[in-house]
């Protein structure tokens, strides 16, 4: 845990969080708290908070009460707005045309009432009809809440200040927040409206709303998933567990203020909150995480590649195999049985621990759990054997126990990640495939009804508890490993391991670093020479034929010569040591920049390997002339 400077005084300075003036005063806390590390400040909020407060108050003043004007069609909207302003001295703000009416806002209820009295005034040949779309009319609650939201939204600060909602004069007057039960229904409605208004919001202040629970405001996470700052100051939240519902929801929440709630005295308060909000840096004005370190952790300085194939032959074989396989997997799994021999094995494991990224509130694994072989959960040897399909017949049974699916590998390859490696001992290859699928139909057979009597141990009982009627079909993610072996001119799947998990987005497949050479190809890995197997540490130099180099991006030898001594831009993603390494390879081998870089990377930055690999390939005539400067 990291404590911010000046944090010791925070508790004592909590008075800084007391509201001192009207609605919106607490808007300052969010920003103020962040900057609350000045020496001796003791947590009291000044400076930027004050400005924010003023902005918030301005927002409160604006756009408050909605009015509708009809019969204006003799002139333009702008004509009408300036006419009203001139004639009545009441400015009509944010006017828009909706149907036959012009809708706008005036500052106060009083202005609205005054304006209404002008109804009947002649404008461009017609009598204007001015109405207040409030109580009694359909959708009046919507208009009321909309007006409220606009009053409380500060676009400059990206702040939605929902402090003490029930104190809002306009809402009070209309009885919107007369009771707690109404309030609990009102918040989801407010959130829905806020989504529709497309507010750009980074901070939300929900202080002083008598909240004794999170349950009434959970929809905040759906409306503002990228919220950075949240204040819940001076409510009555007492149960730490109630925050669990927001677990994995606000992935960008940086600052949270819960001070002034009973829950803060719970001994588990800090660790629990830190766990629920993984990127939270500041809690109640105290630094709980090192932000720099947090960034490092979330951006592992590791190359991420979506696709990797050991060589081009494997690439062709495995991509064809996988796209054909998934096509039949989705349409008719019985067609796949010819790929499995009597010794072939297939098993499924469920990993339900991964956070669910999808909007589906409930995600069900009921169909999979009775056949999940997860060896870290299933300890009975007999169950383990039962859940391992061996041979086409028993494999088909498992296939038919899981829902019908739809993959989109061909149409949306970006949602998938794949790599393939040679398995020379059996002359085959191993494919790792990661991605997602949609469940589109219930399984042909349901393991919950068939296998309970036969299965034993923990897993069997667990299966029995699952009611198949609750097995909703949802989008899910998977990991799959195939061991594929050629046999008699076709392919056999020797091993097939499948992991099913809640749907997660494909962010982890998005490549983080561009790897040279920049050919526009997704797999810049050169084909290996015949007979070379993984495990030998020979660095390969790509032959020219299969390498789709774009000549235009290759530096000319003249440019190359100039670049020696200074660091070329192409190397800017490398560490200084690595840059030096490449420059030395260029000098010693006279290879051009791109091939030197390739050689360096393939040698895993081992100079001896790089140079020996170069010499060997050069002797074998494997290095094309254009690889040299």
């Amino acid at each position: 845990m990291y404590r911010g400077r000046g944090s010791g005084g925070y508790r004592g300075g909590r008075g800084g969080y007391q509201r001192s003036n009207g609605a919106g005063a607490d808007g300052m806390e969010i920003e103020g708290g962040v900057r609350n590390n000045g020496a001796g400040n003791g947590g009291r909020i000044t400076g930027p908070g004050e400005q924010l407060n003023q902005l918030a108050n301005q927002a409160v003043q604006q756009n408050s009460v909605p009015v509708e004007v009809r019969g204006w069609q003799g002139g333009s909207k702008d004509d009408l707005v300036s006419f009203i302003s001139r004639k009545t001295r009441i400015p009509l703000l944010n006017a828009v045309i909706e149907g036959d009416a012009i809708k706008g806002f005036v500052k106060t209820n009083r202005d609205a009432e005054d304006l209404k009295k002008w109804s009947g005034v002649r404008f461009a040949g017609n009598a204007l009809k001015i109405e207040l779309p409030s109580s009694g009319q359909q959708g009046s609650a919507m208009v009321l809440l909309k007006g409220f939201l606009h009053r409380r939204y500060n676009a400059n600060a990206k702040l939605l200040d929902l402090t003490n909602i029930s104190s809002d004069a306009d809402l009070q007057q209309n009885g919107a927040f007369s009771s707690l039960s109404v309030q609990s229904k009102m918040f989801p409605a407010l959130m829905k409206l806020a989504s529709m208004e497309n507010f750009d919001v980074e901070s939300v202040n929900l202080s002083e709303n008598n909240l004794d629970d999170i349950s009434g405001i959970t929809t905040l996470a759906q409306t503002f998933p990228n919220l950075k700052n949240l204040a819940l100051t001076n409510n009555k939240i007492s149960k730490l567990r109630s925050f669990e519902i927001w677990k994995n929801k606000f992935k960008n929440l940086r600052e949270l203020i819960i001070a002034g709630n009973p829950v803060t005295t719970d001994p588990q308060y800090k660790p629990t909150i830190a766990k629920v909000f993984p990127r939270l840096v500041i809690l109640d004005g105290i630094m709980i995480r090192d932000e720099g370190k947090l960034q490092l952790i979330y951006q592992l300085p590791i190359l991420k590649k979506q696709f990797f194939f050991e060589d081009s032959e494997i690439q062709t074989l495995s991509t064809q195999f996988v796209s054909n396989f998934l096509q039949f997997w989705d349409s008719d799994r019985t067609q796949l049985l010819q790929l499995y021999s009597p010794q072939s094995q297939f098993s499924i494991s469920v990993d339900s621990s991964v956070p669910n990224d999808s909007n589906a509130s409930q995600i069900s694994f009921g169909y999979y759990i009775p056949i999940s072989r997860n060896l870290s959960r299933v300890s009975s040897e007999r169950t383990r054997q039962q859940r391992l399909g061996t041979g086409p017949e028993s494999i088909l049974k498992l296939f038919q126990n899981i829902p019908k699916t739809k993959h989109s590998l061909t149409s949306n390859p970006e949602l998938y990640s794949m790599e393939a490696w040679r398995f020379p001992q059996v002359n085959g290859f191993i494919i790792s495939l990661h991605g997602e699928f949609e469940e589109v139909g219930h399984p042909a057979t349901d393991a919950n009804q068939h296998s309970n009597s036969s299965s034993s141990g923990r897993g069997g009982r667990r299966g029995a508890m699952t009611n198949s009627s609750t097995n909703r079909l949802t989008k899910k993610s998977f990991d799959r490993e195939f061991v594929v072996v050629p046999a008699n001119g076709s392919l056999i799947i020797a091993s097939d391991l499948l992991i099913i998990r809640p749907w997660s987005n494909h962010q982890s497949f998005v490549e983080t670093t561009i790897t040279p050479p920049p050919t526009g190809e997704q797999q810049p890995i050169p084909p290996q020479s015949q007979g070379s197997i993984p495990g030998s540490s020979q660095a390969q130099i790509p032959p020219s034929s299969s390498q789709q180099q774009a000549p235009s991006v290759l530096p000319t030898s003249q440019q190359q010569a100039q670049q020696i001594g200074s660091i070329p831009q192409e190397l800017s993603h490398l560490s200084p040591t690595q840059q030096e390494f490449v420059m030395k390879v260029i000098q010693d081998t006279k290879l051009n920049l791109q091939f030197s870089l390739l050689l360096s990377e393939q040698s895993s930055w081992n100079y001896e390997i790089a140079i020996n690999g170069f010499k060997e390939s050069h002797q074998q005539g494997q290095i094309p002339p254009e690889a040299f400067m």
Partner: protein
Amino acid sequence: MSEQFTEFYYNQFDSDRSQLEQSMLTFETSQVQGAKDIVEKLVSLPFQKVGHRITTLDAQPASPNGDVLVLVTGELLVDEEQNPQRYSQVFHLIPDGSSYYVYNDIFRLNYGA
């Protein structure tokens, strides 16, 4: 066997990575070959304290020669960070006398937080 292996592997990784000796490693598809380079790679990974928590483990024989394919999903806990990174990892184990060595080790982060 696969349970023993993963327990051993992760214990070693989490306590002292430099003691892991194996022949091929893929970490987010950056390929590393040879025991020495692999250990170097593991030691150079940017964490001081690492913890692994396995959520699923499955294993199948991968060839008649006694090769084993182990597929693990789990949580990688980096330094003091409580929020785990989700990963999947495949070990291709090859029998070597009475024990096994890791022929291929393919690691992938699974969950874009």
